[in-house]
């Protein structure tokens, strides 16, 4: 019945939304930020532990739709061990991917979100956690909402 949605709800995404990884707070995290989508009520908080320039640990809590939860879960896996700059670059690639469908090198598993661009209403869900990541890196403690951002 939902075959046309299989591009969006890929198995990996379904798996991560049902069993989100790194789904907990990090007490004493180096930085954190809040992401909020006022349209559908998605609400998540991202925690990062940073040592020098490298992200040692990443985790999140909160609630949201399948796409936003899976996106946050895969984000935490993806940025662990990366430098700030690499994480920031990944954000750019993910944003490009979910708005145009173009998959660039180095996104790894995150390529499962390439289908999102065909569903404009869900782009905000996919990108929310990434906005929270950038906020945590650049302006810790900040709250970002999907309504302030272009996407």
């Amino acid at each position: 019945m939902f075959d046309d949605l299989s591009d969006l709800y890929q198995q990996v995404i379904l798996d991560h939304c049902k069993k989100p990884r790194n789904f907990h707070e990090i007490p004493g995290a180096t930085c954190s930020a809040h992401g909020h989508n006022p349209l559908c009520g998605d609400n998540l908080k991202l925690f990062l532990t940073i040592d020098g320039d490298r992200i040692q640990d990443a985790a999140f809590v909160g609630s949201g739709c399948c796409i936003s939860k899976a996106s946050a879960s895969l984000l935490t896996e993806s940025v662990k061990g990366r430098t700030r700059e690499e994480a920031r670059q990944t954000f750019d690639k993910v944003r490009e991917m979910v708005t145009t469908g173009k998959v660039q090198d180095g996104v790894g598993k995150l390529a499962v979100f390439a289908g999102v661009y065909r569903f404009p209403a869900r782009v905000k869900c996919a990108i929310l956690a990434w906005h929270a990541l950038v906020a945590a890196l650049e302006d810790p403690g900040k709250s970002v909402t999907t309504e302030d951002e272009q996407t």
Partner: protein
Amino acid sequence: MSAIVNNPASSTRRGAASSSSTAGEVNWAELRKDFPILDQKIHGKPLIYFDNAATSQKPQAVLDALRHYYERDNANVHRGIHELSNRATAAYEAARARTAQFIHARSPEEIVFTRGTTEAINLVAHSWGMANLKSGDVILLTEMEHHSNLVPWQLIAQRTGARVVYVPLRSDENVLDLDRIDALLAGNVKFFSMVHISNSLGTVNPVADLCARARKRGIVTLVDGAQSAGHMPVDVQAIGCDFFAFSGHKICGPTGIGVLYGRQDLLDAMPPYQGGGEMILSVAYDHTEFKKAPHRFEAGTPDISGPVGLHAAMDYLDRIGRDRIWKHDQELAAYAQERLSALNGVRLFGPKTGRAGVVSFLLKDVHAHDVVMLADQAGIALRGGHHCTQPLMHKLGVESTARASFYFYNTREEVDRLVEVIREIQKFFAV
């Protein structure tokens, strides 16, 4: 074919609802044919439109009225003396008179045309509120208000120093805690604004009783009828409210037109809301005299086709009979409630009995947004989100719900299909 089966004389040209509403059974499925938009496929499946609380669809009779107005009668109102201007003015004022009749106002002078419910409430908040509220006064609302009956009052409270207080919800039943009303009204309440039917819960508030209690204490009342006006018979005199607001687009009319009913003496005493043409008697460089209500509140060229379309919508609804529409809505909602509550993993919101045609629900472990997206793939239009009632969602401990809201063109078969699709959605997300 006539929708009113034992009245075969009814004309088909005017649509299936053209028979008198006083006798006969309505063939609801037949009425669907009056709505061209319903006859289409969405993602390859027949459209099931369950987002009527957001906006209703429009019957051919309304589309025809709009077209006729622009093809034959269009001109500005209350200005010219040429034939078209006369026709446009007559149509505009006829719509006002028809609206007065539709909600049983005492006279057409009690009907102000607005952009919608939201503007009607803002008009009262600004005009009545700024003139009558002062520091220490209380504006009483309920915990289930739509943002449009909440934010305007917060803004006016900030400007006047008045306080906003809420009648609480009984969490068990999602109905107002009526035991608390009198104590709350005994505070320094000046204005009591309440929703008639909650767009999130389907709760029907006992507005006549609430207004009677308020009136005893000289408190001015407003009823937000956005969800009631096109779904049940409404008599503002029987309700006993001072103001009543509703939107044309939710009752088969066009978008951009709404109605504020206000008791004549109150409207006459209220200062203008906006200034401009149409609302003046005479203007000098240093002074203006305003027209009486309702024209005082209709500055500038109004939406003219809107009232024309609304007129056709009100005629259409009353040919079916709002008593019948109400019964149909309630039966469908009760059926949906029964079928959905029989499923595992479905949480229903709203009252256990007597709900209007609004059913909000959540599936265990599936976000409302995903439910709505998958339902759409199956041709079913639902709404997911906070439904412009964020404080209420917060109170219920959720961030959003999925909502199916019905109108007379919806059928039990469509509810059955919804239940089937929800089962599929549960399977899709099964852990």
